[in-house]
């Protein structure tokens, strides 16, 4: 015998003030990382270096190389609006960037990044083949 629980809906309010430059940057077509004078670079960006200093912002651009990818066919809750989507991780110098791509990218492909809204209106990173 099975009964149903009371319904519980959760949608969180996420404070992103310390990385606001990144979130605003996406809407301007820019992808930012952070770096510290101690030598560390961060992507995803963070305002606090583990050494204790405050980091500085720098734009990620140029040529990247695909390190791995997948195409998600079993769609999770929250992405019901999407057809199967390709997730790619590409290296750009001292950082690796995750993004989506509409192209059939393979490991080792050279790519460039851009930003655009997805089908749910969220700005994000995308890759295209160079």
């Amino acid at each position, binding site marked *: 015998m099975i009964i149903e629980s009371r319904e519980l809906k959760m949608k969180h309010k996420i404070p992103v003030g310390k990385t606001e430059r990144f979130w605003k940057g996406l809407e301007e077509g820019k992808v930012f990382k952070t770096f510290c004078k101690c030598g560390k670079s961060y992507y995803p960006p963070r305002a606090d270096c583990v050494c204790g200093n405050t980091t500085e912002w720098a734009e990620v651009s140029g040529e990247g190389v695909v390190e791995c990818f997948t195409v998600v066919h079993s769609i999770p809750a929250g992405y019901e609006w999407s057809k199967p989507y390709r997730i790619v991780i590409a290296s750009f110098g001292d950082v690796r960037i995750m993004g989506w791509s509409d192209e059939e990218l393979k*490991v080792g492909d050279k790519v460039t990044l851009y930003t655009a809204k997805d089908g749910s209106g969220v700005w994000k990173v995308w890759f295209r083949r160079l």
Partner: protein
Amino acid sequence: MKVGVIGVGCSKFGTRDVTIQELAFEAVSEALKDADVGQEDIDLSVVGCVGTRGYELMPAVVVNEYCGFTGKGPIRVEAACATGSAAVYSAYSSIKAGIADIAIAIGVEKMTEVDTATSAAIGGRAGNYLWEFHFYGTTFPAYYAMHATAHMAKYGTTERQLALAAVKAHRNAAKNPKAHFQKEITVEDVLNSRMITYPLKLYDCSPISDGASAAILASEKAVKEHGFDPIWIESVGYSSDTSNMTMRENYVGLKATRMAAEMAYKGAKITDPLKSFDIATVHDCFTIAEIMAYEDLGFCKKGEGGKFVENGESDFGGKIPVNTFGGLKAKGHPLGATGVAMVYEAVKQLREEAGSLQVDLKHYRALTHNVGGTGHFAWVFILGR
């Protein structure tokens, strides 16, 4: 102070029409009987449960009460898919520290109370929600699938080799009455199954299972006083890696596994893992995970994991039988239970109580390897008789 495992229990894994506490009690009552102790003999109870898919979001006290341990803890631990190992370690360390003489680790998970899309969205949160799932819908299979594409590109590992790991898992599970899947499958079944996240197909993936397992641990002093017949925990290794997949060194292995193994091998003075264990349980939530585990645990060189399974080296009669009870892949992977169920399998094998799945013992030593997330956590236990 040495610590031994004096009793183990494991529920049937699968879609189970019982509550989380009833499920936990199946494993706990078996473990108590196995050790020939009562609840009153237990000093501390540890409940390992990820607890994000069941209707009880904070299940430790519910489980603890039903199992008869009210007042003896509980400590609730969570380490994603490695939660069970973290529970065993909590019990182990409390005894090592002299706080408890006898402690129980209960690993339990109800995974089937929500639909698959919800489960996938929760699993995708086992990394870093804000920077990965939020933007890109990185499900748990997707993380491992990305490792598969990297491994295939660098080492030529094939989808067929991945499938062979699944075939082996199902073959063993078919002889394990507690396993979720009781049916053998072929390579073609795997290759023809529907795509979950390229290149992983349905049969490359562990199922969504309910399950519980329990292990009762005792100090050397308690073993002598009560005359228990333990399997000793000879060494433990643990490590972790970044929550963000973009911060990893590479995608062809799990650094946390290598670090955990190094620590455990050092503790047990093991120099050649392939000549030290009669059996290993490795974390095969997906077929690629088992192949990377062979390499990261030092059973073969990096990149040769596909050949290792292809040559039958991880099968009965091979260099090291791996996942003799069916693995996560076919026995099932109820997150909190998995790490404890690995100890259950190691103990059953080392006591020669594994029936038709019994391996031949030569070293009287077993290894368990449990990963949380995609190498976000890793645990290695070495047990010996």
